[in-house]
């Protein structure tokens, strides 16, 4: 399970990767296909826009140890459309899931359901005569805890986003890939269009 702020160097069972990709058709398929063929297990994957046009950010939670995460990171960099990968598992980071839960809730149960929501700082976003929709953001742990308490009322339907993660502090993600000690030259640019390429003869 992920804790809200991780910082310890222990082997994690789950790894959290923040991945910037070019916002192009097929990029999600490329990433998903990579995970499948290299036998990395995705626990969750979310993707959305960033404040930079043309750039999307994924949060990928994968099962595996630190070495698996390094291999995964190196493989992600093989994808031409992947801009930057950061393993935030061991960085101080805020990691959140969003859940929308529709719970059976006759008037008689309302008070109790609302109390549970209160304790978990979840919000009721819709209410009908016999059901409520509850919105909760938080760590997976917290959401699991909420669900445990809601289950006795009867969960009719539920949807969860998977984790999104962001590191704390003002430092943006580092530019140099961490999977191997290496530096990235300023810009990869070629005006010669290849010119028939590396001539090895």
């Amino acid at each position, binding site marked *: 399970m992920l804790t809200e702020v991780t910082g310890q160097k222990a082997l994690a069972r789950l790894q959290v990767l923040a991945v910037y990709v070019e916002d192009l058709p097929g990029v999600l398929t490329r990433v998903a296909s990579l995970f499948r063929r290299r036998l990395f297990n995705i626990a969750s994957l979310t993707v959305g826009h960033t404040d930079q046009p043309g750039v999307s950010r994924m949060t990928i939670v994968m099962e595996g140890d630190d070495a698996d995460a390094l291999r995964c990171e190196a493989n992600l*960099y093989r*994808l031409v459309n992947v801009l930057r990968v950061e393993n935030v598992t061991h960085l101080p980071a805020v990691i959140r899931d969003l859940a929308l839960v529709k719970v059976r809730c006759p008037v008689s149960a309302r008070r109790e359901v609302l109390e549970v929501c209160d304790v978990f700082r979840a919000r009721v976003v819709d209410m009908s005569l016999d059901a409520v929709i509850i919105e909760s953001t938080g760590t997976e742990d917290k959401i699991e805890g909420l669900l445990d308490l809601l289950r006795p009322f009867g969960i009719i339907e539920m949807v969860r986003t998977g984790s999104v993660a962001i590191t704390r502090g003002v430092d943006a993600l580092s530019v140099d890939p961490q999977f191997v*000690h290496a530096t990235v030259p300023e810009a990869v640019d070629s*005006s010669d269009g290849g*010119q028939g*390429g*590396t001539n*090895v003869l």
Partner: protein
Amino acid sequence: MERKGADILWDTLVHAGVEVVFGYPGGAILPAYDALLDSPIRHVLARHEQGAAHMADGYARASGRLGVAIATSGPGATNLVTGIANAMLDSSPVLFITGQVPSWMLGRDAFQEVDMTGITLPITKHNYLVSEASELGHVLEEAIYVACSGRPGPVLVDITKDAMQQSASFAPGTKPVRLPGYRPDLRALPEEFDRAVSMIDEAKRPVVLAGRGVLQSGASDDLLAFLEKTQVPAALTLLGLGCIPASHPLNLGMMGMHGEAWVNLAIQEADLIVALGMRFDDRVTGNLAAYARGARKIHVEIDPSEINKNVQIDVGIVGDIRETLQRLMSRVTAKRRDTWLARIDDMKGDSAVRDIQSLPDNGRLLAAHVISDLWNATQGKALVITDVGQHQMWVAQYYHQETPHRFITSGGLGTMGFGVPAAIGAKIARPDEEVWAVVGDGGFQMTAAELTTCTQEGLKINIALINNGCLGMVRQWQEFFYSKRYAATKLVNPDFVKLAEAHGLAAWRVEQRADVRAAVERARLEPGSVLIDFRVEQEDSVYPMVPAGAGLEDMIRRPSPIVETSQSDW
């Protein structure tokens, strides 16, 4: 100026230095073929798209430049797939261009529509679907750049028919390729070099493992200088053969499943492994748990994802091999390592006695003898291309490579049928060289139709068909590991001489060792392409052999003295 997409295609390729493409036409790619007539590019018509793919790959490997293959949508495109995977696994820079149904029909199972970018996603370095003429030129320049830079590899550009028919303006080579996420030139930090240098200086029993990356970065001379200064011996992968001369005292020879015994033993006894441009394939490591246990490991690779993939590495250096060797060279200490080299010499033991070349001529023709005689007759100077199987391993063992870039073979994918078309591509890349394709009777039949391509193109290649009447390598596994239960490995073959003649080649048969050299000499004198049907011993095996999954020291050696193999089992 506005040009049709199809014209932009050829303009862009011409500007990138492409002189020849290998392909096969069809409906969706017709606009490109029509425009081809107005382009200076030479087109070689294959007899099957797989052949075109291997030709482009062979061309790329022989020239060190981009190879290009082109096919129509649907079946034309899917026929390329084996060739694309082959180029991927051996990091060959090949541009694959496929026609696609018009953009308005995409996604509707139109006639000859297949999702080529989907199919080839895991077997290309990158791929594109282009449905606008205005994007085509730029995508092609990007594709060529990706194929040729960093760790080279195949890139596919799937172009809808309408994108080739529309007009757009594009001037090749004017807009720089901008790929913000693509990092072909990652470089290791200085501290990695410090650690590598001290490890090399401290090592008592070091071995260099040299792979295709050494050849691709043009690092042969640098490697030799490095080895001579440090007196570190080198073992080569199959695809690394030729990167340093076979006869050099510090060249141990080929490692791995069919490597010589002492090479694998030296790796197992080493206290340091310096891996250069190779990827610890299971065919070279055997059982990973038992692999080079006493050795610290330095891995120099242009592709960071190879480091720590199969083998736990102590120092990983990301970068070009040549550049890295030059940096290491100035810092490592010159040394003698006589004890270690003498120890490796001892490991050779009775290998020479067991060697097939020491066998007396008993009247039966052995494949290894054919290859050794071919090597002698050509003074080891031919450009040799193989197919896949036993004959391939014998070429690796007995056609000793003294100079770089004279040996082309399908390594990572082990693709039967690669030999003849790759030889065609290689000959077109290097028309002045003597080309020999050494192929098995099984693999040859997979792409034999390409013989006609030789004839149509007026090419002179020489084909040494190692005809053992069976799928030899599989038969060998059945002999060793399946109690000689020979399921589906015996071949009833066509008359290869007649078959070659029907395709316009000169051809004849050789059954005695005494006739091998004369046959090779005669082939060299023939003006056109030649096929020689060498009828060789059926039940011969490639030794030594490390069974799949076994430790490198657990090899099966050639019985000594040689046990007569009988043909009665067949």
